[in-house]
């Protein structure tokens, strides 16, 4: 990506989006019908364009960084936030080299879609997300892979338009209102601006719109004047129109609101004194605020630079967890684990892997959950050699680790977290179902190779060729004492749980049961009760 080219493309995108801003505002019914999607997207994109005007980035990577940062800082509203994430994913890929060939564009669209989806727990389809995802999917179709870049972009844009047209089928609020998704419409117009900009064709004509932006938006508009001036005039039978026409000649972004007895004035001008003089002729001036906008812009730039390298202020305690299975990984991540390392019974991670994860966590202190009795020692080794203060909470299994995880609060101190999590471990009982790999006698239980083997708190309690017998016994033991909560993690080879859940509910009324897909190998079922 070259700075000049990116400047040109983003300007084209902004130009096209601005032309559609009002129309998009009017579409907005989701997630909250407040009619500002077009404006928010425009302001977000504008902050990228502005940042590029003053950027001195020389490398592709530096351009990407400037764009990402401007999108983050300038993000306005829900659609702006989603868009900032799409931009981030897109330029992350394109920033790697100067090459903008079809394969790289394909990956950029994929990166944009993945980044956008990563940032939401429950994605809603029929929104901007759907549009970017379908664009990425179109880019990955076999027959599009060899297209020259301009044709490729055109094809992807067409799919975006098609996806947008189908958004009412996916989201009831859109269908009821008879509109397409506003954010998606904005994204399509941005993409259209980029595509036309890239091909050098003139943008399609749209009716000119002259409606002014709202008062908040005005503040963010570029102004050639230096001072943002705000004041109130109080008097009798104030002439709003006359004041307006006087001030109009002094600057821009003018707003005069109020009634005969008081008018609030907002104007960007190079001569605040003249504006105030004009007002004093009419009445008493009060509440004067004059801000140097050039200075504000400079301050904002400074803040940008400062925030770039600083660690996240909200993260007091980082958390590294080791666990097997994609489902378990997602569970830990969605509960706030900062890093998750794949590993467990048959694939213990090395101390070096754990240290690398500890280093990658953006907080000075870290808690490690080994989640396997064989990993505890390695984790303690890693803690000794890491450069940060590390506490190992010795969870002996994934399910125990999850129970401890439930007590973790990233904004609490490491001491507090360690204590809470240890308390968590002390108050649980765990169970697991696995398959015996050889004939053996364990804890007084006779086990044959291929049998299902049930363990409770790591002690063998039952073995049989029939899984349901073993499960029953394990569950009964895990629930001994006064348990009020049972979680089940299903792994590879897990059976249907309908009958089991019904039976538990019959025998233990009042217990709350939850089942999650853990995806771990070798252990069809894991249990934890508290």
């Amino acid at each position, binding site marked *: 990506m070259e700075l000049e080219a990116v400047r040109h493309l983003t300007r084209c995108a902004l130009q096209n989006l601005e032309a559609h801003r009002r129309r998009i505002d009017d579409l907005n019914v989701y*997630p*909250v*019908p*407040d009619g500002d999607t077009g404006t928010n997207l425009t302001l977000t994109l504008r902050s990228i364009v502005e940042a590029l005007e003053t950027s001195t980035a020389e490398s592709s990577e530096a351009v990407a960084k400037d764009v990402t940062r401007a999108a*983050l*800082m300038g*993000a*306005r*509203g*829900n659609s*702006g*936030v*989603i868009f*900032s*994430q799409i931009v*981030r994913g897109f330029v992350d890929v394109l920033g790697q080299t100067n090459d903008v060939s079809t394969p790289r564009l394909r990956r950029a669209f994929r990166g944009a879609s993945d980044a956008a989806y*990563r*940032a*939401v*727990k*429950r994605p*809603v389809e029929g929104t901007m997300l759907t549009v970017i995802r379908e664009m990425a999917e179109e880019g990955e179709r076999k027959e599009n892979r060899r297209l020259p870049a301009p044709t490729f972009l055109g094809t992807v844009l067409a799919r975006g338009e098609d996806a947008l047209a189908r958004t009412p089928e996916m989201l009831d609020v859109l269908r009821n209102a008879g509109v397409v998704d506003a954010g998606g419409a904005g994204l399509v117009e941005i993409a259209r601006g980029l595509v036309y900009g890239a091909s050098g064709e003139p943008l399609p004509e749209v009716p000119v719109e002259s409606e002014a932006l709202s008062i908040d938006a005005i503040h963010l508009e570029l102004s050639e004047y230096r001072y943002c001036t705000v004041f109130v005039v109080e008097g009798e039978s104030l002439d709003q129109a006359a004041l307006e026409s006087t001030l109009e000649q002094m600057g821009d972004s003018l707003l005069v609101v109020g009634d005969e007895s008081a008018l609030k004035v907002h104007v960007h001008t190079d001569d605040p004194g003249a504006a105030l003089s004009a007002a004093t002729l009419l009445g008493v001036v009060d509440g004067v605020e004059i801000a140097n906008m050039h200075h504000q812009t400079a301050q904002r730039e400074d803040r940008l630079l400062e925030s770039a390298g600083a660690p*996240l202020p*909200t*993260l007091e305690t980082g958390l590294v967890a080791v666990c097997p299975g994609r489902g378990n990984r997602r*569970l830990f*991540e*969605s*509960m*706030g684990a*900062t890093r998750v390392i794949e590993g467990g019974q048959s694939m213990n991670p090395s101390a070096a892997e754990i240290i690398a994860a500890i280093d990658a966590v*953006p907080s000075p202190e870290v808690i490690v959950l080994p989640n396997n009795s064989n990993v505890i020692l390695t984790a303690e080794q890693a803690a000794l050699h890491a450069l940060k203060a590390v506490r190992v909470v010795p969870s002996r299994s994934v399910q125990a680790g*999850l*129970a401890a*995880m*439930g*007590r973790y*609060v*990233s*904004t609490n101190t490491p001491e507090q977290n360690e204590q809470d999590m240890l308390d968590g471990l002390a108050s649980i009982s765990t169970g697991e179902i696995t398959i015996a790999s050889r004939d053996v006698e364990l804890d007084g239980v006779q086990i044959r190779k291929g049998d299902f083997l049930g363990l409770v708190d790591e002690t063998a309690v039952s073995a049989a060729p029939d899984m349901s017998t073993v499960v029953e016994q394990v569950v009964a033991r895990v629930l001994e004492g006064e348990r009020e*909560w049972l*979680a089940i993690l299903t792994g590879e080879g897990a059976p249907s749980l309908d009958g089991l859940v019904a039976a538990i509910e019959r025998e233990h009324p009042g217990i*709350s049961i*939850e089942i*999650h897909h853990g995806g771990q190998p070798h252990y069809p079922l894991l249990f934890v009760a*508290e």
Partner: protein
Amino acid sequence: MIASTELGTIAVSTEAIAQIVGQAAAESYGVVALAGRGRFSRLFPWGIKKGVDVERREDGLAIELRIVVEHGLKLAEVAATVRSRVQYELERMIGVPAAALEVHIDGVRSS
């Protein structure tokens, strides 16, 4: 939450309100988890109320919401979206927005 109609009263439990709030928050862009001090059921549909605290006060509902946001997003905008979306959903589904709605960003996740 109780409404009287000519046919009788309609009561909405705190639980149900918490679920509406949790659902709205979980669907808000930028929110990758609901946090809080409960067990991990708080993260999933049937346990989503865990990051949500609903209190009935004389002036109406007071709601506290704890969320975890994706790193690299503008936190203030995400929180503002969550607030307006929750209020909108409450208004739409039970007819009354919360009298107080606090959104705590409990953590930031980097993926």
